[in-house]
């Protein structure tokens, strides 16, 4: 188990958190104009990189707020956590 840094509560154990998948998936600007393929990609298709991944987490057993994180999917290390209204940080 690892510690995850909630932006509001600080470090807490992994079991307090709920995973939310890829971050920054934006609802379509003009939903009525999407064809089936575009809808399928919005609903089902997510990035699945081996390496840095911007994803959502919820501190479900704590403050219950969502936040974003950049985590390495190969090492599981969290490189950054940031609030939903913040830009995705650049990590070299």
């Amino acid at each position, binding site marked *: 188990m690892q510690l995850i840094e909630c932006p509001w509560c600080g470090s807490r154990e992994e079991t307090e958190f709920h995973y939310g998948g890829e971050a920054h998936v934006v609802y379509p600007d003009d939903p009525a104009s999407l064809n089936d393929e575009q809808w399928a990609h919005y*609903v089902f298709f997510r990035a*699945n990189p081996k390496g840095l991944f911007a*994803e959502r987490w919820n501190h479900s057993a704590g403050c219950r707020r969502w936040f974003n994180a950049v985590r390495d999917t190969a090492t599981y290390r969290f490189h950054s956590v940031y609030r939903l209204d913040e830009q995705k940080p650049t990590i070299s």
Partner: protein
Amino acid sequence: MTATQPPGAHLPDHPDFLWRNPEPKKSYDVVIVGGGGHGLATAHYLAKNHGITNVAVLEKGWLAGGNMARNTTLIRSNYLWDESAKIYEHALKLWEGLEDDLDYPILFSQRGVLNLAHSLQDVRDSVRRVEANKLNGIDAEWVGPDEVKKLCPLVNISSDIRYPVMGATYQPRAGIAKHDYVAWGFARRADEAGIDIIQNCEVTGFVTDGNKVTGVRTSRGDIAAGQVALCAAGHTSTLTDMLGIRTPVQSHPLQALVSELLEPVHPTIVMSNAIHVYVSQAHKGELVMGAGVDSYNGYGQRGAFHIIERQMAAAVELFPVFARAHLLRTWGGIVDVCPDASPIVGRTPYDNVYLNCGWGTGGFKATPGLGWCLADTIANDEPHEFIAPFSLDRFVTGALVDEHGAAAVAH
């Protein structure tokens, strides 16, 4: 096995080298990326059923060293939907004759599987699945708690536990096999037919020409290919990303563990969908236990301890005697999971590239069936009827095969 023999004494001797380690040729008719069970089975049936032997199986590590080497080896076909039932039952029938086909021991043991029900809704869903199985010609029956106890005396059928056993579905033909021997048997047969199995050969890119892939770039040089099949299980996204193909799979760690060796105490396979534990006893005597996938994406081939803790709590409640068993080791494989808990097999936007991924937790049991159907697909350049429903475009057409109910672990 007599009582005087130590556990495992009836196992076959460790094999000699079963396949060559050839240098890659400049070109092959078919290049299979991934030397696990699916890649090797596909190679075997390409040679056996279609006479196609100018084939290379490329493996980035060592042969069958990924999920094939570390899985819980359960084989069953009691899936709800017709599409799933067909491919898994096809596989199960092939398993039943595989030892003869490969002329190699795979220790296939049809000891039956119990899928436990713990609530009234579980019971209704289970009975529905039993009836669906029967309609598909698959052996299945509903058994009550007393019959569960007869089939597997260790199961706690007390009504005062947190998740009481209200009955189970039972598929007598389900079983386990020795996963290493399965891989080695397929590899030996493919090698005998002239197929090159190339280990330590990582695919680093693809050479494309319009809608075709003409070659595969590898850590051992470029290899030209007439057709390409991607059989890299949890790592498929790393390949499709290079090709610019989007797939809806997410890779997750799936953990399992084994106990020390015990006397034969656990005669069937027991699975519980609701509390995420499944148990069988390996030929040598280890209790083999699996759990659900870890929630987050990961390629690290390890998972989180709290998943194991939850799994062990469930196991000890269902099998109180397990509290005395010592844990020997744990491992995590990487499974690629689809939104509808079914695989993706078939065409890609490239004319000569076939995709095989998204098997989640069900890949091992499908090994011969998938190999058979994918080989047929490659040979005829047309998806075999059993895999046609699992095409990538089902996410656009909406013809999903939503099989969470029979996948039996948390997806």
